[in-house]
């Protein structure tokens, strides 16, 4: 990168840090799917009716990770 540009460096470090928030989303999605799967293995006959609910849960868990991604993008390109 351009040397001596402290603001640029701060932005990029901030963007990198903001991306750690996506790890939280990953944990959340893992929880949703894992719990769905453990429930589905206990009662496989009820599982097929609940896959849509699982995807909605994934989408909501992922939404907050997307905000951290958005923050990273804003830091890198929009500020």
């Amino acid at each position, binding site marked *: 990168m351009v040397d001596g540009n402290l603001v640029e460096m701060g932005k990029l470090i901030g963007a990198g840090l903001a991306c750690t928030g996506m790890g939280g989303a990953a944990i959340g999605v893992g929880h949703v799917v894992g719990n769905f799967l453990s429930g589905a293995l206990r009662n496989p006959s009820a599982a097929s009716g609940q896959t849509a609910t699982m995807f909605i849960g994934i989408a909501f868990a992922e939404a907050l990770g997307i905000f951290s991604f958005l923050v990273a*993008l804003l830091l*890198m*390109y*929009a500020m």
Partner: protein
Amino acid sequence: MASTSDNSAVGMPQLDFSTFPNQIFWLAIFCIVLFAIVKFFIIPRMEDIFANRRKIIDGNIAKAEEIRLRVDEIEKKIEEELQKAKSQCDEIMNTSGLNIKEQMASALEDSKIATSQLISEAEGRLKELRDGSEIAIEKISEELASDIMKKITGEKQG
């Protein structure tokens, strides 16, 4: 758009706001055309296919129901016929048994009569024979006696 390197992307092309009016213009056209296609071509066609299939399936189900009813009817008829045949058979068996018994009884009677007749006839003849033999014995004995008498009284007399 393969990287011609002189115009490679600076930052994210997605955040280049100068392209937004163009994108939204084309997207709006695309959306309207696609919606028209969906509304006026795809949905009527799919519904038509689905309705056709439903109609044929319903028709088949109705036909199957009808055939099932007919089979039931036929089965009932067969059952009835079977019942009738059975009762007829029973009747025939009963009447024929009686007939046979009757015939046998009459035959027995006949044979009894015949044998009793035969027996009485034989008895009669036996009696006759016995009577006949008594007379013959008497005759023979008389002859014998006279012979003896002759012998005793002298031979000249005979």
